[in-house]
Structures are given as C-alpha cells and as structure tokens.
C-alpha cells in the first residue's frame, strides 16, 4: 500500500476519533477514593524535593559502597522508614524532623562527594537514622489522608522507586567517568540540602 494512502487512512481514522470523543467519566472518585489516597501518598515523596534528593542519595551511596550494601539498603530502608512512620502515626514526637531531613541530604551528599566507603553497620546506622526522620514526616500526614491504607501503599512504593532510581544512577560507577559524575551529583545533593536547610528552596 502506498505510504500516502496509509497516512490518509490514519488521518481519517484519528479525525473520526476526535469527533467521536465523549467526556471521560472514569476516575470520578478522584481525591476521595482509593485512587486518590494512593496518588496522594505516591506523589508526597516525589513532590517533596527534600525527600527525592535524600532517597536518590541513599541509592547512590549504596552504589559507592558496593555489594552487599547496594542490595541490603533498599530492603532495610523501607522497614526502618515504616518504623519512623508508625511513630508519626501514633503521634510520638521527634525533635527537628524537617531539619534532620534537610541534614540527610547534606550528609549523604557529602558522603557521596567524598566517596566515603563506610563499613556496612555504620552505613546502616546513618541511613537508618535518616529513614526514621523521613518516615516520621510521612507518618504524621498519614491519618489525615483520604485513604490511609492507599496513602501508605503509595508512599512506600514511591520511596522504593526513588531509591531504585538512585541505585540505577549509581550503577554508572562502572563506566568511564562514572565515579566523577556520581561524586559531582553528591556535591549537588549536599548543596541542595543546604538550600533546604536554610529555606532557599
């Protein structure tokens, strides 16, 4: 079939589809239902740049630390974060949570920029402490969510995916110039953390 004729046919079909288009009535439950709660939880870490930067930093640092840390951190992090989240849900007060979250970007960014290869147990303590703070921030908002179950499902998955994004970026370490790129990224994360801390962002 000549290409022009095929394109004409596609055009006619698409034009017809536009004419036939009706209102999309799906998802009207929106913010009220399970979908709304899930979306709210899923976007909470993604729209919070301080969370995004810290989660990616954890993955990047894991890549620097190498095996087994690169694989243990994404398994352990959500669990510790949930512990912090549970503290937040139960109203257990933690001091300076927002400051700690900003500090997590600074510390993790510096660790990456300086290519610090800490022993696994020290890395676990550092990351775990920050995980509790991040979890607490999410958990505090959980009871007010539209669908708390869907919210928690959404934010745990989003956090995990951010984490995995960091690990994926960290796998550049095996490429030429990859280590330098990651260390530069770490420095940028630390600068972003300073901006979060002093309210520039």
């Amino acid at each position, binding site marked *: 079939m000549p290409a022009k004729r095929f394109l004409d046919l596609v055009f006619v079909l698409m034009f*017809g589809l536009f004419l*036939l288009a009706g209102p999309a009535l799906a998802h009207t439950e929106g913010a009220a239902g*399970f979908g709304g709660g899930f979306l709210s939880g899923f976007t909470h870490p993604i729209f919070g740049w301080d969370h995004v930067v810290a989660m990616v930093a954890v993955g990047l640092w894991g890549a620097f630390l190498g095996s087994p840390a690169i694989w243990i951190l994404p398994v352990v992090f*959500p669990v510790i974060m*949930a512990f912090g989240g549970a503290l937040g*849900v139960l*109203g257990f007060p933690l001091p300076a949570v927002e400051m700690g979250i900003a500090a997590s970007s600074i510390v993790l960014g510096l660790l990456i920029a300086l290519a610090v290869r800490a022993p696994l147990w020290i890395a676990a303590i550092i990351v775990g402490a920050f995980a509790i703070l991040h979890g607490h921030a999410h958990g505090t908002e959980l009871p007010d969510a539209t669908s*708390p179950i869907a919210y*928690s499902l959404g934010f745990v998955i989003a956090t995990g995916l951010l984490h995995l994004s960091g690990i994926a970026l960290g796998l550049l370490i095996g490429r030429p110039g990859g280590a330098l790129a990651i260390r530069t990224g770490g420095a940028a994360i630390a600068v972003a953390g300073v901006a979060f801390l002093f309210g520039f962002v």
Partner: protein
Amino acid sequence: MWRCLALGGFLALVPSAASAHSPFPGIGSFYQGLLHPLIDVGQALALAGFGMVLGQNAARIRGPAWIGFSLAMIIGLSAAWLQPMLYAPEWWIIVFALIAGAAVAAAQPLPASAVWPFGAAMGLVVGIITMPAPAALPVMLLFILGSFIGVQLIMFYALSAARWAGRQADHRWLPIGVRILGSWVLAVSALMLALAWRVETGS
C-alpha cells in the same frame, strides 16, 4: 476496500454502553467475590506476602503449606458465622501480612513447623472474614467460590513470581527484587497496624 476498512474501524471504535457479560443470573456476585481479596488491601498484601514466602521455600514445604492453607480456608468459609466472635479480624490479616513481609524480606529458609501452622491460621482467618452480604443461597455460594479462586490466584501469581525470580542464576538482582517487595509489604503493614492502633485507642 480501504473505505470499507475505515468504516469498519469507525463502527468498531464508536463508544457505547457495554451491556453484555451477564449470560448467567447471579454471575456478578462471582466476580465480586473474585475481586474481593484484591479490594481488601490488607488481605491482598497478606496473600501476596504468603505466596512469595512459599515461592522462596522448598517444594516439600511449599506444597503442604498451600494445601493446608486452602483446606483451612474452606473450613473458615464454612464457619463464617464465627466472624462476629473474631476480635478485630482486619488486625489479624495485617499481622499476617506483616509476618509474611518480614519473612520475604529476610529470605531465609523457614522450617515446615513455622510455615504450615502460619498458612493454616491465615487460611482460616481469610475464610472466616470472607462473608458475603445476605442474599439468595446460590448468589452467596457464587461469591464464596469467586473469593476462593481470587485468593488462590493471588497466591499463585506471587508464588510463581518469587519462584521464577529465585531460579534466575544470571540475574541475581531478581531475588533481591522479591525481598524489596517483601520489605514494602512489611512497611505498609506496619503503618496500617499503627493506624489501626491509633483508631482503636482514639489517640
């Protein structure tokens, strides 16, 4: 020829209400039952978690555990009248999800003496809480049948995925991915439990 095709394409794409798919009276309750374990997030997490646990463990543990779970679920289904006597059944399910998630995240071989009773207890509770709304007996039976199949399917998919991941010697990250999923199940369950506790105590 092409005009006919274009016209046929148009007709096929014209949106209209789909009123088909009701060949059997009451079949809707079957599909409601089928989706029931998915709609109940706590139950879906627990089933997926237990399925992954089975997938991570050896066949000599997996088979009897699944059979025990299924038999216990049938017993639970026939004893659904016990539900009002079961204190906070939604807590039970979340606790099962929590334990299963922890087991998947740990990815350690488990003894049969731990997996079998756990599966049986979980099957019993899942059966008990699968209570259809009062209706004609055939409608309720279809709902129960649908639920049973839905539960089995969730477990089958989770088990198969975990088992497949564990067999990929060339992709060592796949079993880690299953462990990460387990940690997510654990994390969500812990938050749900905390929330349930908060609601229960009114704090």
